[in-house]
């Protein structure tokens, strides 16, 4: 399949896809990328990239993946080992954790951001690893 953007590890890590007419109630887990265009009610835990397309919705307690891109609706806590990206049009309610989190103009988000990074020295951070910033989006 010519769609793989990330390097696929091992064999048979073919992309999985929940079509726009599909609805899953239950748990999804395993290896490989997952594209959600339909509706998922339940937890998602994959080792791969999770993409929630425009018009799709995921409602669960916990969403775990390597990288998460959201253009649709998501309710639940996200824990990513890589990047979390909220595209314009995304509607997200829950806490986000990732190595990096980006929120595009037009995305709606309510929850907490949990993203550890080093503050630059001019903002009071030490040169290496001492001070950790932890921004909280919700007041």
């Amino acid at each position, binding site marked *: *399949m010519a769609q793989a953007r990330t390097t696929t590890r*091992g*064999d*048979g*890590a*073919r*992309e*999985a*896809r*929940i*079509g*726009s*007419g*599909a*609805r*899953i*109630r*239950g*748990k*999804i*887990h*395993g*290896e*490989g*990328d*997952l594209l959600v*265009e*339909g509706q998922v009610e*339940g937890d998602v835990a*994959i*080792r*791969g990239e999770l993409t929630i397309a425009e018009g799709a919705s995921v409602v669960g307690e916990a969403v775990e993946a390597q990288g998460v891109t959201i253009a649709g609706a998501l309710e639940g806590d996200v824990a990513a080992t890589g990047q979390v990206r909220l595209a314009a049009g995304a509607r997200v309610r829950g806490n986000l954790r990732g190595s990096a989190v980006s929120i595009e103009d037009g995305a709606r988000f309510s929850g907490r951001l949990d993203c550890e990074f080093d503050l630059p020295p001019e903002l009071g951070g030490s040169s290496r690893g001492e001070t950790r910033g932890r921004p909280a989006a919700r007041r």
Partner: protein
Amino acid sequence: MASTVIGAGITVEGEITTDEDIVVAGTVRGKLSAKEAVTIEHGATVEADVVGSSLTVAGALTGNVTANERVDLQSGSRVVGNVKASRVTIADGALFKGNVDMDV
């Protein structure tokens, strides 16, 4: 490409319903119902009752099957359960245990 694909590394535990077709290359436990074609690929494991317009099995399926049109059990498939469809084929090399109801 099918509208819904459960990839080879993916497991779904629960209920899948779709208005379109679906290909399972991974594992599904629970219930699977589609308005269009259902394909269970070689290497896939499905432990679920399956409803669809048609069903093609090349992998392992445990559960009862109802198809509006047809069911094809291909060589290498392993199916345990009852099959209900007006047209059913079981290829040489398919393993099947269960009842067939062709609605005669």
